[in-house]
């Protein structure tokens, strides 16, 4: 029997385990459709706020010598309501709407905007490492995480995912609180706070000085987070961080992820990366005699 690429992350069912990560190409429905046709199991939107944000001035993105990408886009986004209008007519694409905010009410308000939209899940970005007041400042505050997740779960029956990252507190604690407050799944991890200085002009390259490191450099860090979460808690996990090949995808499944997200790999290999990974995963499943992704999830935990 042909193995199947479909996977479930708790109640979320996808045809392919590789989804687009938040912030990557994530502002237009036409592009979402294109990515879906290219093999993405779902697309996660750019993180949306209540008001539109222009983000930081450029430079906001560049690649690091030695591998990976650095960004401080500053969560530029058209705002939840503009975005909701845009995806109103979405029929085919499993869209996961990413949200940022600094208080529970922000999330509640934004979720209302999507009442008439076909949304697969909400992803709560608790982990942006370079924007004050939202992101990690939220994720590092246990009380706030609890209130936000509880509010979100009370606002909608659509599954909610918490996206965590490495902040100034123990992210495993954030995960625990999110789970205790009813979260449906965890995405790990966001970019890692980082910096680059140009030696010629002697100034930080990003206009925001600090940014988030993504891509291959953070893969081993992301993988350990997935493994740590999977070893400690019984929660569906979406792995994210530096995944660019099918071997990377398998590593994350073995560590405990039921699905993965791709960001920087698109900058490195463009959008055929979805198809490449899907094909490689299928090949591996055939060779190892698996019929579902689920059979692989967490296999490395027994060691």
């Amino acid at each position, binding site marked *: 029997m042909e193995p199947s690429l479909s996977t479930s992350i708790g109640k979320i069912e996808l045809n392919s385990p590789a989804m687009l990560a938040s912030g990557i190409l994530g502002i237009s429905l036409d592009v979402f459709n294109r990515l879906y046709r290219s093999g993405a199991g779902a697309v996660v939107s750019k993180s949306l706020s209540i008001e539109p944000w222009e983000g930081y001035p450029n430079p906001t993105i560049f690649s690091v010598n030695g591998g990976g990408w650095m960004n401080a886009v500053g969560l530029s986004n058209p705002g939840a309501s503009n975005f909701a209008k845009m995806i109103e007519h979405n029929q085919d694409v499993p869209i996961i709407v990413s949200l940022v905010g600094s208080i529970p009410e922000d999330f509640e308000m934004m979720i209302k905007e999507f009442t008439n939209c076909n949304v697969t899940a909400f992803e709560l970005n608790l982990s942006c490492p370079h924007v004050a007041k939202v992101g990690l400042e939220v994720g590092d505050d246990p009380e706030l995480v609890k209130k936000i997740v509880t509010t979100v779960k009370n606002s909608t029956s659509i599954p909610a995912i918490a996206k965590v990252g490495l902040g100034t507190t123990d992210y495993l604690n954030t995960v625990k609180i999110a789970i205790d407050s009813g979260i449906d799944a965890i995405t790990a991890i966001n970019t890692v706070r980082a910096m680059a200085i140009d030696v010629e002009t002697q100034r930080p*390259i990003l206009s925001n000085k600090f940014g988030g490191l993504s891509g291959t450099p953070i893969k081993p860090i992301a993988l350990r987070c997935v493994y740590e979460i999977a070893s400690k808690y019984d929660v569906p996990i979406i792995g994210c961080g530096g995944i660019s090949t099918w071997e990377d995808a398998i590593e994350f499944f073995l560590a405990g992820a039921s699905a993965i997200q791709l960001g920087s790999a698109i900058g490195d290999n463009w959008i055929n990366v979805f198809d490449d990974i899907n094909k490689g995963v299928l090949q591996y499943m055939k060779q190892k005699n698996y019929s579902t992704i689920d059979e692989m999830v967490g296999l490395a935990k027994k060691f």
Partner: protein
Amino acid sequence: MRWWDLQRNSNHTTIVTIEKVIDETPTVRTLVFSDSIMPNVLPGQFAMVWIPGINELPMSVMISKESGKAAFTVRKHGLASTGLFNIKVGEKIGIRGPYGNAFDIKQGKLLLVGGGTGLVPMMRLLTHVKSTDDVTVLIGAKSKDEVFFEDLANDLLQNNPHNVIISTDDGSYGEKGFVTDIVEKLVNESHFDGVYTCGPEKMMYKTVQSAHSRGIFVQASLERMMKCGVGICGSCCVGEDLACKDGTIFDGNHLSKNNEFGYFHRNKAGILEDY
């Protein structure tokens, strides 16, 4: 072994020093610099240009007469482009790229339609035409003192059958009227093997319509808000296309199916706005 020892990482900023500044018009300047890669980019390709402390902007890579050199030709507009405009000889800027695809240059009778700094990729295109090509260059500007690159175009085409036409909106120089009316006239009068355009979107839109509706091969280089330039951020999307990665050059056939071209672009927050 580290790959970045072997080749320059085109997605990481390289610092170059401005060696010459040429005033093209009161609001347009060309900044010349030496570099190993930028002098040889393909016609239509652009770079991301970092003005330290100010911003980073997409800029078409301008040709330079001196070998081993390239340039940017910038019109001062908002904060960022004015910052670049004000760079002095000896000051440093950062560049990464080249990015984007290139014009598909046909042979025979060619029409190039450029407005403002949209002329930059047209000038590089001229360095790639065959000497047998019959080339018409149409330069649009608001008024006489905004016309530039006329001499350069004539110069680059000195060995070709050619025609450089200027049109100004106010008639203060060359023909009076909108450049797109002249395009319509030209494609009506004679057959072209290829039409290439870069400049204000409305101009490109009409040019593409005029040519494409007559079955003439036409390409336009689209300008969109660009933050990354490499197909990551999504800010440059035009329908399902990413201008930086799938373009910036698209042909008439493709553009005629795109609902945003000619009508909408996205602002810095990613909100669709009318042109």
